[in-house]
């Protein structure tokens, strides 16, 4: 009898374990919920458009022609697979775990954003929408959207906060060269959040002929799911590359988190690999204690903004707080709902790195590896460097080097007191 009870116990625990495992990758549910997070908090005008998008995507993600076109462009247009590069001198400097860089900075247009844009531009094409719109913070998603619009012959309008336009001028000009219209957004905090609201307003007005390319794993369902799926090529490649180079899994994966698309893209294929630590790095700006940051997972409370329930930087009355980060691409008060869920179930860890630490890592990577990282990616790198120093030399950390820093040269030059004119 005792053995039966034990068998039942073991079987039950296996089922439970299997159940939990399964739950990690089958999320979200049909209505777009990741546990209590996600959903579709939008105006009624958009509900039918979101249902059509969900239906189209669920069909096309198993469509051979669609997938063939997607992977063809990832290889021949984006330049995938991106290398998994051993940062040898940086590793030696930190004196601990091997630091491997997943080189999304080498993609066409200079960041991981293009992976998702190829996927969504194809969705627009298959759905017969001649016009695309996008929001952008640092300008990387705007550039990637304008790029795919040119590539697929779609009309493109990009909304960008006027403060971000001022600090990311090279990308603004680049979008114009690509034939996109860049619309400055002067409402609210004049950054990414307000650009997203303005893009939503455009979408409700032009929903019949317009496809909205959301740039991160946030917004209403099905965006968090489909952006994650298109970005998961990063993690699929990194996993295979690590196994091939070392015959083993990495010990930790580190990625910066604003909305969280590069992090979700590299985390997702590792969700079942429970021994692999997944670490998301939020921007602590001037320091978490100052309130001037953009780290909702580290300090925020649960709220609802821009289509989904998630961790949100807000006051006790539910008003959304202004955010700050030196990195425009991380300067957002919310975060993708799947990250909120992974935090709660403790499958991923979330930490924060301030401006100073990010700038230090930015300079170190230039000097030691000859690589100019985006300020966004430098946040992940900064945490990984400190973490490496605490780990042993036979352990492996993969950092998602999500973008290159050419766009940040004006910001950096200003900090260093150098005039580029």
């Amino acid at each position, binding site marked *: 009898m005792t053995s039966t009870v034990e068998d039942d116990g073991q079987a039950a625990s296996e089922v439970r374990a299997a159940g939990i495992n399964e739950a990690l990758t089958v999320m979200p549910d049909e209505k777009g919920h990741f546990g209590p997070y996600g959903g579709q908090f939008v105006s009624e005008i958009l509900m*039918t458009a979101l249902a059509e998008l969900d239906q189209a995507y669920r069909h096309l993600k198993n469509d051979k022609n669609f997938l063939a076109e997607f992977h063809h462009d990832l290889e021949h247009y984006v330049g995938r697979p991106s290398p998994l590069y051993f940062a040898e001198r940086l590793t030696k400097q930190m004196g601990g775990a091997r630091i491997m860089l997943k080189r999304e900075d080498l993609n066409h247009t200079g960041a991981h954003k293009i992976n998702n844009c190829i996927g969504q531009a194809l969705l627009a094409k298959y759905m017969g929408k001649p016009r695309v719109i996008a929001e952008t913070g640092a300008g990387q998603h705007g550039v990637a959207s304008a790029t795919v619009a040119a590539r697929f012959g779609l009309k493109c309008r990009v909304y960008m906060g006027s403060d971000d336009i001022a600090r990311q001028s090279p990308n603004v000009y680049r979008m114009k060269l690509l034939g996109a219209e860049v619309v400055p957004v002067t*409402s*609210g905090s004049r950054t990414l959040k307000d650009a997203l609201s303005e893009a939503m307003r455009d979408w409700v007005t032009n929903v019949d002929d317009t496809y909205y390319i959301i740039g991160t794993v946030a917004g209403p369902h099905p965006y968090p799911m489909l952006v994650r799926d298109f970005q998961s090529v990063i993690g699929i490649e990194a996993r295979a590359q690590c196994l091939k180079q070392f015959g083993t899994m990495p010990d930790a994966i580190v990625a910066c988190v604003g909305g969280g698309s590069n992090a979700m893209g590299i985390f997702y294929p590792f969700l079942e690999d429970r021994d692999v630590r997944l670490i998301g790095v939020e921007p602590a700006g001037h320091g978490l204690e100052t309130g001037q940051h953009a780290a909702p997972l580290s300090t925020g409370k649960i709220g609802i903004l821009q289509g989904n329930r998630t961790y949100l930087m807000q006051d006790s009355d539910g008003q959304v707080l202004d955010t700050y980060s030196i990195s425009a691409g991380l300067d957002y008060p919310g975060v993708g709902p799947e990250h909120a869920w992974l935090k709660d179930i403790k499958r991923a860890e979330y930490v924060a790195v301030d401006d100073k630490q990010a700038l230090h890592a930015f300079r170190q990577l230039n000097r030691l590896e000859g690589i100019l990282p985006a300020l966004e990616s430098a946040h992940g790198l900064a945490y990984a460097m400190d973490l490496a120093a605490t780990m042993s030399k036979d352990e492996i950390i993969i950092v998602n080097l999500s973008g290159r820093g050419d766009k940040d040269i004006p910001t950096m030059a200003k900090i260093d007191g150098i005039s580029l004119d």
Partner: protein
Amino acid sequence: MSRIADCFQRLADNRQKALVVYVVAGDPTPAITVPLMHDMVASGASIIELGVPFTDPEAEGPVIQLAHERAMRHRVILRNTIAMVASFREQDTVTPVVLMGYINPIEAMGYEAFAALAASAGVDGTILVNVPPEEGRVLDQAMISQGLDPIYLLAPTTPEARARMIFERTRGFTYYVSVKGTTGAGNLDIDEVTRRVAAFKAYATTPIVVGFGIKDGESAAQIARVSDGAVVGTALVSLIAANEQDPVRLREAVSELVADMRAAMDAVS
């Protein structure tokens, strides 16, 4: 019966249609809101939608976005918006008042706490722009148990099956957003509105009021002819913005427009 049901019954008895007016609480100052509410009722408004100021009013056009910003400068938020309704109720226990806005301030307060506070202040219902029925189930229970009506929206993009589902959930009345766009969008297509409202009427469970694109007596009268009521928002908020520095003229201008619309609507019903 609820104040909203009473209101539509009274209107039907008088062969009138509902004139639903929208202003943002605290715009341009907290002191003006309650007197303005009484003015609008005196001029013929049937139902008041009181906008709850929010940092990110993502469904609003530029005119109402600025109204939210003006109100937020005075720290008008959900709690003091509800207090304004309590103050309004000291003199008016008849006119329905519904709160219109976004879910996050209610999420932050907690659904049960919100429903209890709003009901005790004399609020009659909510119109939450970013909560479709699928996401509103838990809040609806809290509200209904306090006698509050969750009012849902219909859009030009809403197909029939979905409209039927919405009519199963909405209470008090249903708000048809007549134009694809943000508040203040133009291009009211009266033929299209007539056709859609007539189709909804076949299975509607509540009165249907129509909003977006109604800016004067003429457009209000056109809408009144084919529905149960007209909503005016941006046109009123524009007058408030234009007379921000002159509260006396502001109240006159708002009252005049409401009275014009009432007269035009009554002339056709």
